[in-house]
């Protein structure tokens, strides 16, 4: 087993194998370096650019203006906090809605292959109909003259002059809606491997259904929940399609919208870059804490 025992031929074969590995990995790695790693560095550099006195709109020179960060943070901290808050609510809602969905398809319908297949197809297919088209449809469904708003007014849950669109409710509902499959699919994949005999065993040992759920099902589905929450939270925090189409007022603006308008309307590249960088770092910190706290086998 030791190195000395290997023949020259074997060592040569090993080297050739390594070279194949390099050929396989290098092209993709090059693309990721040039168009992911480097751009993040460029973004960081751009966030420190300076606007020289008397410069035209959109004219900046390389510099080290740390105050760019203080400026955008003091101006846009409400939007930043709101983005995380909305994303968090949407993630929790998606989990509360998505877990029963995944459980229904993966466990309850295990014996009924046809129905299981149909529901699984319906879970995947929305990915292919346009995301923005669906959000726009959702807006029209929630519109004042729409069925839902009218019914809610009829049963007096919504005041007669109330609206559903252009509210935080609409934005969070849109976020939950759009990222729900990202929550359901990992949990489904996980519950698909759940051995239901374990639940029978726990029932035989006089565990109540709730105990069985919290002590058996939930810990076993933890990796799926973990992946699902990350796949929902991260894109939701940066999303601005939902807040722009379903909200688009002061109480609903999310940070993505601000970054977009700083880049393209105000032409404030350093400010926009600083905000992007703040968003990236905050998410990385949150995700790291989350992984440290829950990313072990003893989740829950």
């Amino acid at each position: 087993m030791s190195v000395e025992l290997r023949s020259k031929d074997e060592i040569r074969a090993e080297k050739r194998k390594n070279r194949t590995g390099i050929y396989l990995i290098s092209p993709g790695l090059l693309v990721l370096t040039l168009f992911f790693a480097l751009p993040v560095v460029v973004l960081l550099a751009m966030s420190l650019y300076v606007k020289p006195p008397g410069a035209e709109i959109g004219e900046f020179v390389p510099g080290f203006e740390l105050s760019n960060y203080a400026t955008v943070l003091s101006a846009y901290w409400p939007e930043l906090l709101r983005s995380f808050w909305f994303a968090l609510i949407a993630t929790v809602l998606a989990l509360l809605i998505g877990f029963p969905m995944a459980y229904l398809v993966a466990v309850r319908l295990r014996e009924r292959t046809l129905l299981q297949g149909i529901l699984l197809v319906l879970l995947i297919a929305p990915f292919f109909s346009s995301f923005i088209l669906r959000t726009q449809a959702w807006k029209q469904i929630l519109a004042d003259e729409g069925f839902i708003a009218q019914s809610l007014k009829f049963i007096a849950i919504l005041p007669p002059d109330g609206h559903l669109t252009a509210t935080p409710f609409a934005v969070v509902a849109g976020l939950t809606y759009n990222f729900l499959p990202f929550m359901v699919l990992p949990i489904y994949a996980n519950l698909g491997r759940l051995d239901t005999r374990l639940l029978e065993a726990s029932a035989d040992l006089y565990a109540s259904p709730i105990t069985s759920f919290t002590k058996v099902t939930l810990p076993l589905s933890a990796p799926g929940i973990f992946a699902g929450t990350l796949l929902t939270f991260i894109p939701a925090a940066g999303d601005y399609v939902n807040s722009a189409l379903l909200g688009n007022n002061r109480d609903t603006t999310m940070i993505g919208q601000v970054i977009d308008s700083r880049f393209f309307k105000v032409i404030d590249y350093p400010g926009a870059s600083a905000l992007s960088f703040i968003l990236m770092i905050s998410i990385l910190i949150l995700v790291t804490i989350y992984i440290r706290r829950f990313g072990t086998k003893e989740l829950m």
Partner: protein
Amino acid sequence: MKNIGRWLIPIIGGAAFIYLLVPIAYIFVFSFNDGGRANLQWQGFTLDNWLNPCGAPAVCESLVHSLQIGVVATVIATALGTGIAIGLVRYKFRFRKLTDVLIILPLATPEVVLGASLLAQFLNLGWELGYTTIVIAHVVFCMSFVIVTVRARVSSLDSRLEEAAADLYASPQAAFWKITFPLLLPGIVAAALLSFAMSFDDFIITNFNSGSFQTFPKFIYVSATRGIPPQANVIGSAMFIVALLVVIIGQVISYRRKKQLENA
């Protein structure tokens, strides 16, 4: 208590499926709306939109752009991503940890930041925004998903199969193309489909790196304020139906395989 649990899951699950599908039903119904550009209210049933889906200006042009970009980005991302996935699992490699970070980080970065950093890069390089910059952006964000999907497949593959092929005097190339590749193919196809769907549907990253180049999601976003033409609903519905068919065919194939394996 047991009864509540029994019914709670089908009720919440069923309601969730309705939640998921109502907007799609809405898109489908309104694809038959005789509304012209004002497709906000029901104006009457017509088949015209389905018979002439390119009737509204710029709808099909943007659709063709999105399809082209989707195909090109998917081919490149799948090829590069599959290479990395196989290389990482099967070969010793010096910058393994660094490569892992480079793969995972784009997944943990919100689209708006990926878009903004690429825009910063292109502005610095002085590249004109358009077709090429969109393709590059899509390759980058699709690649991570391809790598994760294919790598799971490579890891679950039994490497003794290749060793057996080598024992039977297959060259490494022959062992790869006759044994490894066919076994990886379902994973690669799934990754490519996912990649195409993500590229076709992407708005945020595209918006940052497209300049005035129009894609289908951009077209819908821009026309959202003054009413999306019903022809766009036709295209959205048609995509959904095609996706249904693709997924159903995939399910049937995997079901048959399972049956074959059980019988063997």
